[in-house]
């Protein structure tokens, strides 16, 4: 069988060209963030990207236990002016005084932004991955989220019609994989990774360890290999 294992991050993203749409797993901070794939994409320099992720990139700023500069996330793609549109939920800076690169570019009219409730973000990726045409979601009714969207009352409650997100690529950070693409994650590093993997046409994974088929108990697999297309083992010295 054609191997899903690639030998470098650069090779694994070879076909991410200008204008591509990429879902990036993770939640905030380095936990479950595909840092090495993001670095490779920064180095490749593809432009006019649309990114789908929870945050708009936080690695420039300290948040909770995460210290600015100790890890990378997609903020570096904004710094490098590679992004045309950001779809996410927690898109601003957590700091009351400092703006993120995304916010500065948004204020300058250089980046388009679509802000969603966090649960709606995952639900729209679910719809993309699961072949649903749309989902009626109660979150955001009576807020700016409903602007320009269809609403409907179902059994006396108001809902917003939300449509699928189907990114071409996903960047996923996993803990262990087998060579057929089955993945497991560790604790809070799971977060948005499985739903990004499910939604994308081409899911690219960076992973601590790759084992032979049979090395993962079938009952504990979180992302079945059907959703995984390329994998790179994080080498010594890679971002963890």
């Amino acid at each position, binding site marked *: 069988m054609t191997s899903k294992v690639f030998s470098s991050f650069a090779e694994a993203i070879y076909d991410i060209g200008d204008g591509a749409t990429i879902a990036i797993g993770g*939640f*905030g*901070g380095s*936990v*479950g963030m595909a840092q090495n794939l993001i670095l490779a994409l920064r180095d490749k320099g593809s432009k006019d990207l649309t990114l789908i992720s*929870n945050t*708009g990139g936080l690695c420039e700023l300290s*948040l*909770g*236990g*995460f210290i600015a500069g100790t890890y990378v996330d997609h903020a570096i793609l904004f710094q490098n002016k590679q992004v045309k549109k950001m779809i996410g*939920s*927690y*898109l*601003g*800076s*957590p700091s*009351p005084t400092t*703006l993120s690169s*995304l*916010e500065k570019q*948004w204020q300058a009219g250089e980046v388009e*932004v679509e*802000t*969603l*409730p*966090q*649960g*709606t973000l*995952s*639900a729209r*990726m*679910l719809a993309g991955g699961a072949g649903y045409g749309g989902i009626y*979601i*109660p*979150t*955001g*009714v*009576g*807020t*700016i*989220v409903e602007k320009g969207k269809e609403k409907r009352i179902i059994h006396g409650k108001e809902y917003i019609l939300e449509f699928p997100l189907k990114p071409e690529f996903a960047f996923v950070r996993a803990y262990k994989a087998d060579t057929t693409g089955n993945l497991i*994650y*560790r*604790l*809070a*590093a*799971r*977060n*948005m*990774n*499985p*739903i990004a993997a499910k939604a994308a046409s081409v899911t690219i994974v960076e992973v601590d360890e790759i084992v032979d088929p049979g090395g993962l108990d079938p009952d504990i697999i*979180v992302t079945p290999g059907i959703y995984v297309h390329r994998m790179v083992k994080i080498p010594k010295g890679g971002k963890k």
Partner: protein
Amino acid sequence: MKRTLDNETMAKRVAQEFEDGMVVNLGFGMPILAANFVPEGKRIFFHAENGILGYGSIIQEGQDIDPDLINPGGLYVRPLPGMSVFNHEEAFDMIRGGHVDLVVLGALQVSKNGDLANWFNPAKGIGNIGGAMDLAVGAKKVIVVMEHTTKDGKSKILNECTFPLTARECVDMIISDIATIELTPGGMILKEVAPGWSSEEVQSLTEPHLIVADDLKEMDLRV
């Protein structure tokens, strides 16, 4: 100026609402402090939007930290026996589907009918919705914990919110630094005042009319 409750004391008052076995989600900022004041003998299952149910207290620096175990605010937390991990979609199915018993959120403004504004101060950048809208819409019960007034002394409890809303008619209770208020279809009921405060003083800092409870109490701040 009269003494108001500090953040930690408010968090302790929030923790009095915890019932044994409850699933509770604590929002960013002040609410998260309540995780450290669970009454003895009670097990609370803290739910985190990033995909954890049943985590424990926040770990300060220098102690045993598991680098993969953080809460939604990026703080390291302790694992507890019975904890489970799931993906982000599942975390929000739990919230939106009404499986979370109690949500505690911070707020910029709350209106008399329970509208909540807590995600966006239009003076400031792009705004962060995060999980706030889902939590406000989906929880069985929503408590807001906040300072009663803005820094320049204006009521954060209003007839109508002026900031962009998080959700309409979602707040069940407000625990502020001077009072505990229940929101009911009949209006806002002042249930408790902070030590040294009268109901008239609380009303004077609150835009909507408050109905003073027959059994108005002083807030009990023991834990």
